[in-house]
């Protein structure tokens, strides 16, 4: 299959790769920022590895849709503007500096990133079926499963933390 056959698929593959880089970076940031919350810290690092595994699995096959789909993005490098936690959490936090409240906003942000990636996987799964690429479909399906588990964890942790936190301020 030539690299120009499906520029739409190539576009979404690039976007989901970038989305996984963002999520991996933010998961590491959350793990570091909330390192005294031991369960959040360790689960976040485990989940960051899934984003890395997703990128590796995808890049192993994705070059058939474009030569520029290489995994040369460094999660330690500068963040894309939309992904930076400080920008998205600073405003609603305002004069509430409680770390636990910050964790709630961080988890919400992670949930949005994971959900965003999930929607890319949904689109890609449909598109690669239409393009009859069962090999890439298998990879996309496996990646989507890991992304969903990332999102479900964010949501479940928000659910567990919120009652005590939001009624005790």
């Amino acid at each position, binding site marked *: 299959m030539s690299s120009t056959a499906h520029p739409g698929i190539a576009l979404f593959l690039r976007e989901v790769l970038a989305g996984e880089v963002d999520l991996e970076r933010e998961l590491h940031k959350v793990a570091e920022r909330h390192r005294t919350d031991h*369960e959040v810290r360790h689960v976040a690092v485990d*989940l960051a590895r899934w984003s890395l595994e997703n990128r590796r699995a995808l890049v192993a096959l994705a070059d058939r849709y474009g030569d520029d789909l290489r995994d040369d993005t460094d999660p330690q490098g500068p963040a894309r503007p939309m992904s930076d936690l400080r920008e998205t959490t600073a405003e609603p936090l305002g004069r509430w500096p409680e770390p636990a409240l910050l964790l709630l906003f961080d988890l919400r942000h992670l949930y949005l990133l994971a959900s965003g990636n999930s929607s890319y996987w949904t689109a890609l799964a449909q598109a690669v079926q239409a393009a009859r690429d069962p090999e890439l479909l298998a990879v996309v399906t496996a990646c989507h499963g890991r992304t969903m588990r990332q999102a479900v*964890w964010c949501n479940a*942790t928000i659910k567990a933390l919120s009652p005590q936190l939001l009624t005790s301020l």
Partner: protein
Amino acid sequence: MCSAGRPCDYTGLTYELLRGPSGIQWPVNIDNPQGTERLYTDAFPWAAPDMCESYGKDTVTGAPAEPAEYKASNPEGKAVLKGAPFVPPHEVPSKDFPYVLTTGRTLYQFHTRTKTGRAPQLDRAAPQVWVEMSAADAEREGTQEGDLLEVSSPRASVRARLRVSGIRDGVVFLPFHYGYWDHPDTGLRAANELTITDWDPLSKQPIFKTAAASIRLLDRDGQQSAAPTTTASAPAGTSAAVPATVGGADALVEEVIA
């Protein structure tokens, strides 16, 4: 009654039944007034989506499964088998801490020994903390049976006498029964001060089997390790001449069944 309609339904239980000749097995209700000897002879209905008490949890994150996901994946209420993918340990050996540290139990003690440490025979069988290493690791480190070692992790240290046992190369073991309630003046013997603060997100069990540690020889004075010579702490090979762990006459009982 709160148990009505649930698996452990004992709405049919009476004081008369309880005072009767034997135990009563649930459910005991209007359909099973004498209790139920054998459960689920036809089927196990309690995993059905509208019957179950929990939808299960993610094996890696511990997050509860979503109701819609459970209903879609198990509409018939069958048993669910879940695979758990490999997750690398959260602390692995390094140049400064080259051994895998596991902490655990000995047959003769239970947890912090608040009961077993007061039974003289059990206390004598395993009276003090020890550390286990393989024969190959002990030889490479220049250590031998009975040496006093300092075992350190990035968080804490324990001082313990060496038992060269059949443990795997590259792994050191410390029993975690020994703390401070009966030895208030001796520090450096609580093994779980060395482990990482981490637990399995699903079961909430603490992680005592994956930490990294270093060892250092402190003293060689001819004293023996307190490790039992039975069970997994048995000395390796035939080289170590250490006194055998024995029960003695006061541990013997005679049972007479009339």
